[in-house]
């Protein structure tokens, strides 16, 4: 499977891809990387010489949604991705091999490409007990540490790998953590989302392939090209937010007219992702366009960030209950304060010595 001897350009030409086809391919790649549109020739020059990296894909506590998302990646097609872009040497869901043969493939790739292969991880790692999640009898923690040791970089795909995700949500029964909680000595790119936008996964790979460097990352280790602006700021419904026009329920006039979904719990203002421009399902639509607020799935702890249908500004606790309890406590403490003040004042009244004109001068 591994063939690192030829460059991408040679490989494509061997397949009879014309220069026009290659240019088109590069245009698509540049667009996917959110590069300025005029950058396609530069991308072409870089891709011409790029070599296919070996990729090892590890899946831990996950739902395979990230892989599902990737296999629906439309630009370029998964076939292209698998056979032209990268050499996917281990992916226990997609690979044909199983059992000992599969593990052998992983070990061979690690050995052959030591220090050069890319490690892709989806799923979080349970620290509560090694037996919570194992592959071929190896705990997730051990496999991650082993495999990351020789990797050039780690790409944490999906919110579980990037931030802990659903397994880490309170009460976090397995003691789940993110990749970056364990691996600290390798470059890590977080491609968060539940699942991530497929083009973003391939885009990150393409970036690595094109420029042989890691993309510029944000505070959370996410590529700025895709996570640089919030959903809210790129949302086509934003003008309604600014005008103060909101859907109040999912089936009201406002909802039909496509007004802002803030009041219905849209987490767009705090969610950074590219959904608003890249969209889903071959660019067909995305959650807000289909009438549902953003869940903020690309953000750390989004499962615990209050109800999905509660507006972002509403605190996560039960405020009415807090007000009720505090009010009752206030009444109790207030009653005590009344007692103290009454006592103090009646003491002052008792101590009152009648003032007569003989008392006007100070005691000296």
């Amino acid at each position, binding site marked *: 499977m591994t063939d690192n001897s030829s460059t991408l350009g040679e490989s494509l030409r061997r397949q009879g891809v014309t220069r026009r086809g290659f240019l088109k391919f590069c245009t698509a790649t540049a667009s996917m990387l959110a590069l300025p549109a005029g950058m396609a020739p530069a991308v072409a020059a870089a891709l011409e010489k790029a070599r296919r990296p070996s990729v090892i894909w590890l899946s831990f506590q996950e739902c395979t949604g990230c892989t599902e998302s990737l296999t629906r990646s439309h630009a370029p097609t998964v076939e292209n991705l698998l056979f032209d872009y990268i050499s996917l040497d281990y992916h226990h869901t997609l690979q044909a091999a199983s059992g000992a043969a599969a593990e052998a493939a992983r070990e061979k790739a690690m050995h052959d490409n030591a220090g050069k292969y890319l490690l892709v991880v989806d799923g979080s790692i349970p620290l509560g007990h090694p037996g919570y999640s194992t592959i071929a009898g190896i705990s997730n923690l051990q496999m991650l540490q082993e495999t990351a040791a020789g990797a050039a970089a780690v790409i944490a795909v999906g919110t579980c790998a990037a*931030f802990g995700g659903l397994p880490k949500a309170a009460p976090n029964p397995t003691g789940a953590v993110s990749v*970056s909680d364990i691996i600290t000595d390798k470059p890590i790119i977080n491609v968060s989302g539940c699942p991530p936008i497929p083009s973003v996964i391939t885009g990150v790979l393409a970036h690595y392939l094109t420029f042989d460097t890691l993309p510029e990352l*944000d*505070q*959370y*280790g996410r590529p700025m090209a895709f996570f640089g602006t*919030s959903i809210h*700021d790129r949302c086509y419904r934003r003008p309604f*937010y*600014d*005008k*103060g026009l*909101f859907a109040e329920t999912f089936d009201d006039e406002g909802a039909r007219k496509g007004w802002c979904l*803030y*009041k219905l719990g849209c987490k767009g*203002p*705090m969610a*950074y992702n590219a959904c608003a421009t890249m969209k889903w399902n071959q660019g067909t639509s995305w959650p807000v366009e289909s009438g549902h607020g953003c869940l903020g799935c690309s*953000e*750390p*702890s989004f499962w*615990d*960030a*209050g109800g999905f249908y*509660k*507006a*972002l*500004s*509403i*605190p*996560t*606790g039960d*405020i*009415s209950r*807090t*007000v009720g*309890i*505090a*009010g009752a*406590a*206030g*009444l109790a*403490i*207030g*009653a005590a*304060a*009344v007692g103290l*003040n*009454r006592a103090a*004042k009646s003491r002052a009244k008792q101590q009152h010595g009648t003032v007569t004109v003989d008392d006007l001068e100070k005691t000296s």
Partner: protein
Amino acid sequence: MIEPMDFLLWVRGTAFDVSLGIFVIGVVVRFFEIFSLGRAANFAEPRGTEFGPGMRTILTRNIPEAGTFKRQPLTVIAGYVFHIGLLISLFFFVPHIQLFAATFGFGWPGLPTPIVDAAAVLGIAGLLAVLWNRLTNPVMKLLSDKEDYLVWVLTFLPLLTGYLAYHRMVDPYPLILGLHILSIEFFLILFPFTKLMHTFTLFLARWYNGAMHGRRGVES
């Protein structure tokens, strides 16, 4: 690495509950403290009533006496500007209304964000003018103590952080949003124990003033 988000969740969760709790307890206790001191019965034959004039004064004190305004226009104008800016930003920004709706069970229509934005700028400008006035006007300079400046900061920070958060001038957004909420939590916690209480007690004070004058037949 993920501190800003954890921070935001904390200020929206535990911290908000705690500060709201302290706020409610404090305000209730303060009112009890005030009422506990009582008011002696008044045996003098009244010329007018108390209730109506008291309510009237609650309204009329919103407008300054002309002569006083002429002598101290900055205090009045800056005071108006900042209060109006603050109140519009607080009560007519949709995310805020959502919070009130979640607390009280009812909401009201918000204003378009450009208007709220302008109000916030006015509020900030007004507060800066108020501070300048406090630092330069001889009367205010003499009167002001640490608490006055503390209260100024407590009022200014929510406006400033709110403005920064809305315009995403600080990265990442959860950090500045968290700071905004945190600044409000400081405001809530200290509210009952500082002169921020005037927000509520001024109605009481005005009523007492109007009632005491009204009883003597004077519109105050």
